[in-house]
C-alpha cells in the first residue's frame, strides 16, 4: 500500500503491520517509522497520510485509532478513532 504525502511529496510505503517506509519522490529510502507502542499498522484511512492502527487495548474507549503521519519528522499523531 502506497500513498504520497501531500505536504512533502514523500512516498509512504506500508508493508505488513510493522513497517512504514518513507521514500523520496525518486524512491530513495528516507526513514522507517514504527507503529505507536501497543498498536500495529493496518491500512491507509483515506487518500492522505493518515494510517489506521489497530490496538491491543482501549484508549479513551477505542481500540483502533487513526494516526497522521509527519513524514518529514518521522512522527505519528493520534487524530481520531477508527471504526
Amino acid at each position, binding site marked *: 500500500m502506497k500513498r504520497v504525502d501531500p505536504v512533502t511529496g514523500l512516498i509512504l510505503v506500508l508493508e505488513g503491520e510493522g513497517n512504514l517506509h518513507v521514500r523520496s519522490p525518486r524512491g530513495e529510502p528516507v526513514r522507517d517509522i514504527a507503529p505507536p507502542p501497543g498498536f500495529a499498522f493496518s491500512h*491507509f484511512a483515506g487518500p492522505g497520510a493518515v494510517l489506521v492502527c489497530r490496538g*491491543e487495548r482501549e484508549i*479513551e*474507549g477505542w481500540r483502533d485509532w487513526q494516526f497522521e503521519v509527519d513524514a518529514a519528522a518521522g512522527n505519528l499523531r493520534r487524530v481520531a*478513532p477508527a471504526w
Partner: protein
Amino acid sequence: MTILKRGAALLLLLVAACAAAPAAPRPGMGPAAVEDVHARWWAEQRWRYASDAVAEEGYRALLDRQSAWPEWHQKDIVTLPVGLRFQMALSPGQPVERPGAFGTFDRIPNVAWVRRVLAVKVAWKPAIDRVVTYEVAAPLPADVGTVGPQIDEGSREYLPGGGSQLEMQVPAAERFTHLKVVEVREIR
C-alpha cells in the same frame, strides 16, 4: 392589562424553553447546523434524562467522548459461539484479515445505512467500499448491544444509530484468528 400580562408570561415561557436547550457552536459548524443536529438529538434523547441540564451534559459528553455505545449501555461481555455470523464494513485497501473491532448482526445494505444505523462518522471511516461476512471460528469474547447515536460534526448530521453491534474484546492481532471469511461484497 390582563392580556398584556398573559403575553409577557408567554414570552417568558418561550425564552425559558429556548434557554433550556442551548446549542453552542462547534468548530466547523454554522449556528443553523448546530441547532438542527442538537434539536434532532434533543427530540429523540431528551426523555432519557431527569432534567434539561443533565440532558445537555449527556449531549456534551457525546461530542467529547464519542462513545460508540449509547450512554445507557451496560457492558455485556459474552462469548460468541463458533458458527455465529456477523457483518463488518471495510475501507478501500483494508484487508479482510485486519478487521476493525466493531461488527453488526444486521445485514448491511449500503454505505448510507452504515452511516445512519451504525452511526459511523465520516471522520472515523472516511470511505467504505465493501462488506465482509465473518463467521466465528473460535469462541470470541465481545461486548454486544445497540449502536448509540452520534453527532457527525463534519457532515453536520445527527446519526441515530439503533443497529445491533458487537465489539471484539481481544487484542487486534488476535481478531482474525477467531474468524473466517464467508463472503465479501461491494457496497456504495
